[in-house]
């Protein structure tokens, strides 16, 4: 580590300046150690010797330097997602109790060592997480209480909500209650999944993805919710998270609309749902992953992106006719802004996107598919990036990414108007590329001698 620090002392100086310039009231507490500040925390995985070792590394800068995990960094348990709660805590969210181990949290000490806090959590299964005040909120859609079973023994679907309180270091889960029913959430009989949370003031906005009819929903009232009987499964199939059951109608019958649930607070018990038919559901999908597509800008405007993933559906009744696009909910309002709509495919030459993130100043970073979505086919690869500006409705593909690119990291890190995106290549170690949204250019920054970069953030030492 020391060798690296002396080599890049200039970078350290620069980073320290950046770091001080954007820090908050905690500044007074910070006494940089002799080794120099290393406030950037990178969750990485090293796959070698038939084993994947998760390791947390610290860096002085994301713009330059090479960091090795050999006898350096903190080896930890595997996590499904690495989530930074502000600049205080790093959570390694892990669930599915038996397999993945426990959810843990980390802080940075005054010497920039990563320290695991003593409390760990056995977390319920979840599919989506979000922030609300001190909480990291997780949700999934699962089976409801036994006593709700219908005559077939089928259970209605229900949201399972859990809260990690980052300050109090506690964990709690919702209990089975009809307020959490996901079954017939939109009034069309289908059950839903929540995909991505965005807090605005006290309220919590979530994109709603209709999932089709569960066994319970398909059987309800003699099948009155079944629009397309040929879509009801006649046998069990599939494996793991994407398995389906006999009697289920997998995937939505309503692919040409987008719904947003507006919850009064983090309890998710009081809500209203707003709908637009200009875009399809606002969620990025990869197998059973549902990526966040609802984001707030600095002024409180909310933007919803739909990649129109339902274009890939095999059955034409489940296929959306709407192109990938963007709509808006203006600051202070709880209705869709009728004056705002952008057709992304019209700007991109027909290409949709897998993921989106907000960089700042009205600029969004989109991970673009390399080809248009085709019915009945697997989604194409998504190995390019674009900057979409919501104010002038322009889309620019990012230049300067390496030719040998094989994957992007799970989440970029935003700082000073730049997006720092982890990039994996076939002829080198993963590196962080700094993307400047003003001219849509990418410049290679720090290199990490690992297999994948799973999370980047910044923590204040404490």
């Amino acid at each position, binding site marked *: 580590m020391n060798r690296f620090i002396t080599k890049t002392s200039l970078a350290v100086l620069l980073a320290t300046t950046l770091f001080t310039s954007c820090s908050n009231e905690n500044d007074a507490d910070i006494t940089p150690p002799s080794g120099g500040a290393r406030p950037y925390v990178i969750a990485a995985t090293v796959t*070698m*010797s*038939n084993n994947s070792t998760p390791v947390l590394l610290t860096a002085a800068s994301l713009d330059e330097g090479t960091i090795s*995990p050999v006898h*350096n960094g903190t080896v930890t348990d595997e996590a499904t997602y690495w989530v930074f709660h502000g600049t205080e805590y790093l959570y390694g969210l892990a669930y599915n109790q038996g397999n993945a181990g*426990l959810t843990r949290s980390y802080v940075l000490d005054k010497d920039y060592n990563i320290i695991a806090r003593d*409390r760990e959590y056995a977390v319920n299964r979840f599919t989506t997480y979000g922030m609300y005040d001190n909480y990291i909120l997780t949700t999934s859609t699962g089976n409801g209480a036994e006593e709700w079973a219908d005559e077939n023994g089928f259970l209605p679907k229900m949201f399972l909500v859990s809260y990690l309180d980052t300050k109090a270091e506690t964990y709690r889960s919702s209990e089975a209650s009809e307020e959490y029913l996901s079954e017939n959430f939109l009034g069309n009989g289908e059950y839903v999944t929540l995909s991505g949370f965005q807090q605005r003031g006290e309220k919590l906005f979530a994109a709603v993805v209709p999932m089709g009819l569960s066994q319970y929903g398909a059987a309800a009232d003699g099948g009155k919710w079944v629009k397309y009987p040929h879509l009801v499964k006649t046998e069990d199939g599939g494996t793991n998270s994407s398995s389906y059951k006999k009697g289920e109608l997998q995937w939505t019958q309503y692919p040409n609309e987008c719904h947003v649930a507006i919850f009064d607070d983090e309890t998710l018990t009081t809500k209203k749902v707003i709908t637009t038919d200009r875009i399809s559901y606002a969620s990025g999908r990869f197998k059973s992953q549902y990526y966040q597509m609802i984001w707030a800008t600095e002024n409180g405007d909310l933007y919803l992106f739909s990649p129109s993933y339902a274009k890939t559906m095999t059955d034409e009744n489940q296929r959306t006719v709407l192109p990938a696009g963007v709509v808006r909910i203006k600051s202070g309002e709880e209705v869709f802004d009728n004056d705002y709509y952008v057709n992304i495919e019209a700007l991109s030459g027909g290409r949709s996107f897998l993921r989106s993130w907000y960089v700042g100043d009205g600029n969004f970073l989109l991970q673009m598919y390399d080809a248009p979505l085709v019915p009945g086919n697997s989604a194409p690869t998504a190995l390019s990036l674009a900057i979409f500006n919501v104010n002038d409705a322009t889309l620019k593909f990012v230049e300067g990414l390496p030719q040998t690119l094989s994957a992007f990291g799970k989440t970029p890190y935003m700082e000073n108007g730049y997006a720092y995106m982890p990039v994996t290549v076939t002829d080198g170690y993963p590196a962080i590329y700094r993307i400047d949204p003003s001219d849509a250019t990418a410049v290679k920054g720090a290199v990490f001698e690992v297999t994948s970069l799973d999370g980047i953030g910044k923590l204040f030492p404490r």
Partner: protein
Amino acid sequence: MSALPSVAHNLKLYGKVTARGEGAVPFAAVGVEGGKFGTYSNDNGDYELELPLGRHVLVFTAMGYEPVRKEVYADEKLQLEYNVELLSSEQLLDDVVVTESSAGLSSLRNSAYNVVALDTKGVQNSTGSLSDILSKSPGVRLRESGGEGSGINLMLDGFSGKHIKVFIDGVPQEGVGASFGLNNIPVNLAERIEVYRGVVPVQFGADAMGGVVNIVTNSVREGWNLDASYSYGSFNTHKSFINFGKVHRNGLKYELNIFQNYSDNNYTINAPVEDFETGSIEKKKLYSVERFNDTYHNEAATFKVGVVGKSWADRLMLGIGLSQMYKEVQTGVRQEIVYGQKHRRSHSLMPSLEYGKRNLLFNGLDLSASLNYNRNVSTNIDTASCKYNWFGETKKLNGRGEQSLQHLQSNNENWNLAANINYSPGISHRHLFTLNYLFSAFRRSNTSLLLPQVVEDPIDKLTHKNIVGLSYRLTPSERWNITAFGKYYNVFVQGPVATTSNADEYVSNARAMDAVGYGAAGTYFILPQLQVKLSYEKACRMPTIEEMFGDEDLEQGEFGLKPERSHNVNLNVGYNGKFGKHGLFADAGLVLRDTRDYIQRNIVDLSGGKSAATYINYGKVLTKGYNVTLRYTWDKLLSIGGNFTDMRVLDNMKTAIGSSVPNLGYGGKMPNLPSMFADFDVTLYWHGLGGKDNMLTFCYDGQYVQEFSYYSARIGSNKGDYIVPDQLSHNISLVYSLKSGRYNIALECRNVTDERLYDNFSLQKPGRAFYAKFRVKLGK
């Protein structure tokens, strides 16, 4: 009968031919290699033969018995007595002779393979299972995840349990299910256990790259015998075993084995406890807590009936086996994660047919064949509505299922057909050809029992395997022999695969693959007591059913695995000598394995953020190591010895996965594998205590395992957090045998010093435990 020309200075050789446990063998052919001289034994088994001076190789053969070869030197002595004991073909399916060293561990004499035979005679009064005996073999390490009936992983020279195939009396045990495994079969069932390391003879038709374990059962040979035992001990552990077998004069034979194991496994471990108030686990606050959802029991019975010693069959046996198991699941892959109701059940039905015939059609052609069918139904049940902590407290879950809601029944069907033909022209056994064929078929289907309306998976998982092996052995003299062999493997697999990324349609996908392996083995006796063995095999292991399709629970299959390929080399030097009352047995072995497309279990993220254990092919692995076995015996009063193994399993891949950059692990040890371990024991015998035929045996044994890292030790600066520490454990037992072993009482203390023992990261094994066993062995 002897029609010998009268020659001056002839040697007169005489003696008696007997069969083990059966007495004199009449009409045994006594031949001399070269064919010029020969005779037969008389009704009393006696023979007499005159030979000219010089070196001769005698061959004793008799119908239904394994031939015995003996080199003699006819020198100035004019008379030489040589008595020979034959083993019936049923006693010995393969062509090896066990030479016993006084303490249970011996090499298979004349075998060129790296093989040891573990004689269970000395431990039949212990309360252990076959796995306990196996762990006292060089290069072998057994990793258990908990107490009685917990999952075990057998490791041979760094290869995991999946690379090792288990046979009972030469019959493959694939698909028998968890209720009839190494960790629950009592020691009394076996007469000995043979462990072949790395290079495997063709008569075990298996793609076992790491080696083969063959359990030779304690089968009645004449008259009748009864072996019955019961043991009780800590954690409410009950075990019982009954074996009864009888051979009638007319050749009718039957044999019954019944055994049972039960344990609450409520041993104490040290773990943090989840506080339901805060929903958190204070990882540094360890409590001493008792396991409460770990009850295990299994019951098994096997019955065999048939005939022996007929002109058309040396052995024809029809068998049926029934077994069942119930096992509660206390923890996830980490001890912090507690289950209070999750459990599994399993039932197996195992009919079998075995046939053996020497000199079939013409002299020197021997056939043995077996057909068995294993049907195993296992059910995983996780339907709890609340979660548990280590104090046994509960909290209502917002859904069902402690890990994930499941009531899944897996039906496994396994057919095995194995046939082995040996052909050895003439009576000399100079040339031996062996042809082995194995066919196995495996089918798995799943049924969900969650709802009243039972639903079955539309697509079954299916595996067919064909393995053919051919070998030739040349035995020019008693002092050396050499074998060359080739094997052909073919495997066909079929299972469901999603056709779209929406996973809304599944089709049955099939894949066939084949591979060829070959090898050679040779042995040479430098002195009668000093033997050198060298063997090589280009081995192959086809992916297993579990690796390709998972176990429907925590293990996730990988459909696209390639076969593993490996070059295996063994070099062994063994010494077995006696000086008056002193006996010395020593064996040193060097092991080299160069493996490609290594398949290893790995805990990975699956799509959707779910994690599970899965299997991947990974580049190259180099295994190099040695083991040393030493044993000293004094008269029949003392035996002291042990095994030491240092097996380095190294990452031999230069570039990282998916990139051309250097692999940071290159040259480093593969993680999560114990590499250095030892076992040692001292046994004292007090003959004649309290009666002429009584004996008191005191035994101490210990095991050592050097620390190893769960993750690669090169990564991070906190590697101590993921270390399975150095461990040393001790066991003591006291056995009192009356009337030459008819009645036996044993007392055992395991883990005397109450060490915290781990074979797997975070999963603590039982502490100090006491057991008592009573055993009766009667027979004629």
